[in-house]
């Protein structure tokens, strides 16, 4: 077993374990923290796949911004702090059963399908290729710009809502 596979397994345990904690812990801030760990694990997997740009961006956006967003949302909502949340209700066993069934189905399908793989091992996607893909000739420039406009609209909307009526 080489380091590559070993790292992959460690990271997978980290991701899955943290994800499990997110949905089962009783303290919502702890859940948010474990969500951050999940994101970091995913960034690690990206790094393993030689997509280091994506790994850095994953950390920057998901860990650095989205987690903070979730934490802010949690802390600004009065009634959730210090309360021990009940993560399950009467339907929990049914939910677990259906999730496990779904998982088995997917696993069986996935293992029995031969996915067409490319001849190369892994393609090292450098920052430059991503840049050219987004902004270069005949590329994804239009969707990129549309996405920016969408984000701008969201930002403006948030500011308008946050300013309140009296302004």
């Amino acid at each position, binding site marked *: 077993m080489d380091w590559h596979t070993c790292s992959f397994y460690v990271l997978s345990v980290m991701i899955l374990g943290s994800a499990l904690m997110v949905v089962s812990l009783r303290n919502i801030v702890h859940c948010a923290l474990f969500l951050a760990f999940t994101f970091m694990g995913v960034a690690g997997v990206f790094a393993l796949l030689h997509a280091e740009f994506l790994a850095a961006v994953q950390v920057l956006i998901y860990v650095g911004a989205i987690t903070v967003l979730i934490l802010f949302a949690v*802390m600004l909502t009065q009634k959730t702090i210090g309360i021990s949340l009940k993560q399950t209700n009467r339907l929990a066993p049914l939910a677990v059963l259906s999730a496990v069934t779904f998982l088995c189905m997917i696993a069986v399908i996935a293992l029995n399908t031969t996915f067409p793989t490319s001849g190369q091992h892994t393609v090292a996607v450098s920052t430059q290729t991503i840049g050219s893909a987004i902004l270069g000739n005949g590329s994804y420039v239009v969707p990129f710009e549309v996405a920016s406009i969408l984000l701008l609209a969201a930002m403006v909307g948030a500011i308008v809502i946050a300013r309140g009526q009296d302004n």
Partner: protein
Amino acid sequence: MTLTGIAEFIASFFGLPGSSSVWIVAVLAAAILLGFMLLTVLILIYVLRKLLGKIQARLGPTRTGPKGIFQTAADALKLLIKEDTIPVKADRRVFIVAPILVFVPAYLVYVVVPFGEGNHFIAKDLNIGLLYIVAVSSINVIGVVLAGWASENKYSLLGGMRSAAQLISYEVPQALAVLGPVMLAESLSMQDIVKAQGEGLFSWFIFRSLPLLGFIVFLVASMAEINHVPFDLPEGESELVAGFNVEYSGMRFAFFMLAEFAASFTICAIAATLFLGGWHSPIRGFLDNGWWTVFWFFLKSSALVCLLMWIRATYPRVRVDQLMEFGWKLMIPLALFNVLVVGLYVALGKGG
């Protein structure tokens, strides 16, 4: 006598497979960086107090050791032997994790700081070096928010959130300001950026395209990022609302202080790398190889650190809403303008 050599020796000594030497190199490099970081903080705190003393017409530390050089050690000892109090209602685990989340990013950035020429003076010259720095610094924010929250103190929660707002606001101009050198060097790797400034004093990025603007925006935004005066409202005896680290005592508090001082050296190092030519000497080819590069690097970083301390002594604190206004309404337009100008410069210069 390189790290790789040592690592291979250790690997063979313990009978580990040859490929594990990579990991041993990593561990050794991490240990060296940690030692360097702690040493830097030690020296920086002492220099700060002496320099502040000189500016403020007083002596600074004089009693602890000759000329007070053991002052930081005395402070560290004091913090170590303090009682480690955790508020009763505080969330213990988060309380303990928060300082780590603030300290570790400050430490991680040292991996890509180019102390000198070649691959043995930088822990790892990542090809996304700059992006890595920006990404890792953003983890800071979680630590701050959690520190404020875990203290179970309304005021420290408010202080923590305010501090977090400051941090995320100033990440934007910092990242934008960094784009200038990236465009001029056409690479995100730190060593490449330094190499692109190799032709003597006027090839330094601070002088190319729009002189000084990118540098100033970066420095000011970074000062806000590390809670440095004049942006230290979250931790100065914040008028009414306590800072996020008010409930921390002893070594946990030391973590926050360590992170701040280490970060102040890091941003000066990065500013020196991006704008002041990194480890190059000002005169092309003169004393520009081997250990001399380390000397130039430290000279520039130290000059910037002293500049930061000078600013600390001179300016009062900015109020929090003025700080946000300043960041969003002044810094970001300036940074965007800088990106535009540098982009035009690069595009026109490349025969566009």
